[in-house]
C-alpha cells in the first residue's frame, strides 16, 4: 500500500530521499505549507537566512565545496526575485543548485495576485532548466529531474516553482520517489570520442611549447587528479583560470599561476608563445583571451569540455573533444601511457627543456612578487595580508572571495593544492557572494577552516548574514581588505579615467567593523601595519578563536593596484606590470 502524502510532505520527503542535508531558506505566505512540512521532520535541516540572495549563495558555496547540489527554499514574489542574482551567479560558474520557490495558487496565476511573480519567466535566462509544478502529483518527478539536471553534464541552477495549492496539506497523493530518470531530450556526454582522444594525445606529444590551460570544469568535474597525473607524466606547464584554481596543485613547480587579465607574467607569456594549448574545462572567457584576434597566434588548440557549445565558441578548436573532464582525462592518460610505452622518446625532451628555461626566465624576472615592494613608511599591502593568511592556514583553508581587487589578490597569493578550496564568483562577478558562500562551505564542513577574503564594499552587500552566523555559530574568519573605496573601480578610474574617482569612495561613511562584528557577538580585530599583521593573523587562527567568527578589518594601502594587468584589446603578452612601469618589455 503506497504511502499517502500531501504535496508539501512529498516535496520535503523527496528532498530527504535525494539525500539533502541543508535547505537554505526564508519563509513567506506561498511557502508556508512547505515550511509546516519541514517543521514536522528532522532529516533536512533548514537554515534561516536574512536575505534570499544570501540563501542562493550559501547553496552555491555548499555545492562548490562538496560537489553536491545546494538547495534553496523561498516564497513567491520578492522571495523568488531576491534569489535571481544568486541563480545567475551559479549559472555563470556552472554550479549545481536547486531553488524551490513558492508560487500563488494555480487559480490566481496571472492575476497579479499578492506576491505573484512569473518566477519561471524571470529566471529563464539564468537557469539550466526550470519546472512549474501543475499539480501535487508531479512533485516527486520534478524534484528527481531537477537534481539530475542540476548536477549532470555541465552543472547549473534549476528552479522548481510550486503553486501553493499543490502543497495543500489536506490533499493527499500516493508517494513514490522515482529510482532513476531518463529523458530523451537530455543525455549529457560522458567519455570523449576515442578517435579525438588519440589525435589529442598525438598532438600533445609532438608539442615543443605546450601549455595546459585548465578551468572550472576540472574542479567541478572532479578531474583534478587525472589532470595532475597527465601534467606530471608529460612534465608540461599548467595554468589555471580564476575558476580553475586548485585544479592543479598551486605549489607544484609546473604551475604557472592564474592566466588572463590579472594573470601572472609567465602564464600569459607561455600562452602567447605556446605551439600547443590543451584547454580543459575552460571556456576562453574574455577575461582570459583579451583580444581573440591576437590570442596565442602560434598555437593549435585541443579543447576538452562537457558542453559542446563552449567548444569553438570564441577560439576555434583544432581538436575538439566533447566529454566530462574526469573520464575523458583518464582515457587520455591511458592512451598517453600506451604511446609512451611504444615510443619512450615520443616527447621532444630537448624542446621541452628549452621551453621550461624560457618560462623560468619569465618567472624569475616578473613573477608575482615583483610588486611586493615596501614603500617609505610602508602602509600595509593587501598582498601581505593574503600571504599571512596563507601561512597561518598552511594553504589548507576553504577560501571564498567577493569581487574586486581583494579577489584578485587572493587568487594570486593564496596557493591552492586541492580543488574545491577556492570559491569565488568568477563569471558573474557578484559582490556580496563571499560571506554567504563561506557559510555554505562551513555548513558542509563544520570542522574545516573557512576564510572569506573580502573588501568593505562587497562585504556591506550581504553583511546582514552576520546574524545568521550568530544563530548557527559559524566560526568563519572574515578578512576584510579595507581600502575605504571600491578598489577595482578606482583602479580603472586611475588607469583609464585620469584619476577621476567618480562614486568609488565613501571614506567617511564606513562603520566601525570591529564594533559591528561585536554587536553580532563575533570577535573583531583591526590591523594597519605590517609588524602587527603576523601576530594578529596568528591569533585569529589560533585555537582560542576556533569556535568563533572573527572579523579582521585590515586597513591596507588605498592606492594599491592589482598587477599584472592586461592591456585592453591586446594580446596575452601585452601587460602593465607596475603602477609606473608602463607596459611589459617585449620578451
Amino acid at each position, binding site marked *: 500500500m503506497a504511502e499517502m502524502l500531501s504535496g508539501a510532505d512529498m516535496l520535503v520527503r523527496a528532498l530527504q530521499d535525494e539525500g539533502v542535508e541543508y535547505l537554505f531558506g526564508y519563509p513567506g505566505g506561498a511557502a508556508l505549507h512547505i515550511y509546516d512540512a519541514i517543521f514536522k521532520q528532522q532529516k533536512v535541516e533548514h537554515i534561516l537566512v536574512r536575505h534570499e540572495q544570501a540563501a542562493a549563495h550559501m547553496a552555491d558555496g555548499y555545492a562548490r565545496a562538496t560537489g553536491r547540489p545546494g538547495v534553496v527554499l523561498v516564497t513567491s514574489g520578492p522571495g523568488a526575485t531576491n534569489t535571481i542574482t544568486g541563480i545567475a551567479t551559479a549559472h555563470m560558474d556552472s554550479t549545481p543548485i536547486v531553488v524551490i520557490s513558492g508560487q500563488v495558487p494555480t487559480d490566481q496565476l496571472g492575476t497579479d495576485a499578492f506576491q505573484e511573480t512569473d518566477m519561471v519567466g524571470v529566471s529563464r*535566462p539564468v537557469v539550466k532548466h526550470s519546472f512549474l509544478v501543475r499539480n501535487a502529483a508531479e512533485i516527486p518527478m520534478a524534484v528527481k529531474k531537477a537534481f539530475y539536471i542540476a548536477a549532470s553534464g555541465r552543472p547549473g541552477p534549476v528552479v522548481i516553482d510550486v503553486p501553493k495549492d499543490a502543497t495543500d496539506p489536506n490533499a493527499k497523493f500516493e508517494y513514490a520517489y522515482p529510482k532513476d530518470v531518463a529523458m530523451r531530450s537530455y543525455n549529457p556526454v560522458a567519455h570523449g570520442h576515442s578517435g579525438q582522444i588519440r589525435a589529442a594525445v598525438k598532438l600533445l606529444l609532438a608539442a615543443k611549447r605546450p601549455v595546459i590551460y585548465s578551468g572550472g570544469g576540472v574542479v567541478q568535474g572532479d578531474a583534478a587528479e587525472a589532470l595532475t597525473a597527465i601534467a606530471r607524466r608529460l612534465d608540461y606547464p599548467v595554468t589555471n583560470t580564476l575558476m580553475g584554481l586548485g585544479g592543479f596543485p598551486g605549489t607544484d613547480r609546473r604551475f604557472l599561476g592564474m592566466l588572463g587579465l590579472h594573470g601572472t607574467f609567465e602564464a600569459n607569456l607561455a600562452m602567447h608563445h605556446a605551439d600547443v594549448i590543451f584547454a580543459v574545462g575552460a571556456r576562453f572567457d574574455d577575461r582570459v583571451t583579451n583580444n581573440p584576434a591576437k590570442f596565442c597566434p602560434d598555437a593549435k588548440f585541443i579543447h576538452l569540455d562537457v558542453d559542446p557549445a563552449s567548444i569553438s565558441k570564441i577560439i576555434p578548436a583544432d581538436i575538439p573533444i566533447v566529454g566530462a573532464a574526469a573520464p575523458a582525462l583518464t582515457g587520455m592518460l591511458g592512451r598517453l601511457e600506451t604511446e609512451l610505452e611504444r615510443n619512450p622518446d615520443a616527447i621532444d625532451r630537448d624542446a621541452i627543456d628549452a621551453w621550461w628555461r624560457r618560462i623560468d626566465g619569465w618567472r624569475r624576472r616578473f613573477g608575482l612578487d615583483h610588486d611586493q615592494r615596501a614603500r617609505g613608511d610602508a602602509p600595509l599591502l593587501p598582498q601581505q595580508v593574503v600571504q599571512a593568511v596563507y601561512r597561518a592556514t598552511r594553504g589548507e583553508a576553504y577560501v571564498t572571495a567577493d569581487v574586486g581587487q581583494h579577489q584578485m589578490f587572493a587568487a594570486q597569493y593564496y596557493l591552492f593544492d586541492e580543488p574545491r578550496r577556492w570559491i569565488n564568483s568568477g563569471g558573474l562577478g557578484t559582490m556580496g557572494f563571499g560571506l554567504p558562500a563561506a557559510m555554505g562551505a562551513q555548513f558542509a564542513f563544520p570542522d574545516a577552516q573557512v576564510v572569506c577574503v573580502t573588501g568593505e564594499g562587497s562585504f556591506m552587500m550581504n553583511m546582514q548574514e552576520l546574524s545568521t552566523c550568530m544563530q548557527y555559530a559559524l566560526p568563519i574568519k572574515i578578512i576584510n581588505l579595507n581600502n575605504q573605496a571600491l578598489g577595482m573601480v578606482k583602479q580603472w578610474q586611475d588607469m583609464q579615467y585620469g584619476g577621476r574617482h567618480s562614486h568609488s569612495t565613501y571614506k567617511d561613511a564606513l562603520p566601525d567593523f570591529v564594533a559591528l562584528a561585536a554587536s553580532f557577538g563575533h570577535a573583531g580585530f583591526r590591523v594597519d601595519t605590517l609588524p602587527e599583521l603576523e601576530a594578529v593573523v596568528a591569533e585569529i587562527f589560533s585555537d582560542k578563536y576556533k569556535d568563533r567568527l572573527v572579523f579582521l578589518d585590515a586597513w591596507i594601502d588605498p592606492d594599491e593596484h592589482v598587477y599584472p594587468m592586461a592591456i585592453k584589446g591586446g594580446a596575452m603578452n601585452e601587460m602593465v606590470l607596475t603602477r609606473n612601469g608602463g607596459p611589459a618589455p617585449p620578451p
Partner: protein
Amino acid sequence: MSARRIIAVLLENEAGALSRIIGLFAQRNYNIESLTVAPTEDETLSRLTLTTCGDESTIEQVTKQLNKLIEVVKVVDLTDGDHIERELMLVKVRAEGAQRPEIKRVADIFRGQIVDLTPDAYTVQLTGPSEKLDAFIRAIGRAAVLEVARSGVSGIGRGDAMMRL
C-alpha cells in the same frame, strides 16, 4: 558570410518550451526572421521551423545552444542538405472594376487561389518558397495590397532524409 538558414527543431510539447527558444534567441542576440510551431503526429512532440541568418560560426552556436535546451529533442539545419521549403500567405488585395480580372490572372500565374471576395477586394491564398510570395506582392504592386498574413517558413528534407526520434 551571412546566409539564410532554415532550422527544424523537435521539442517536447510542454508549456514553456517555446518561450525558452524565443528567449534564447533574444538573449544571445541571434536573429529570427520567421518561426512556426505546431504539434506533430506524435502529440508529445512539437515541430518548430525557424529561419535565421548568420555566419557559419553563429549558426553553429545557434544549433549548439538550441540543443542545450533541456526540452529540445533534435535540431537539424535543413539548409545543410536538399530540402523543401514552403510558406503560406493570405493576402487581401484591392480589386475593383477593371483590375479584377488582372488580379485574378496574376494569382493564377502564381498558382494562388481566391478564397474570399468582396465587391472591392480579393483574398488570395498562396503557398511556396518565401521568394515566390515576395514576388507575388511585387507583381500585384504594394499599393494594391491591403493586408498580409504569412505563416512563416516550414520545411522538410528531400528524399529519404528523415527527422524523427
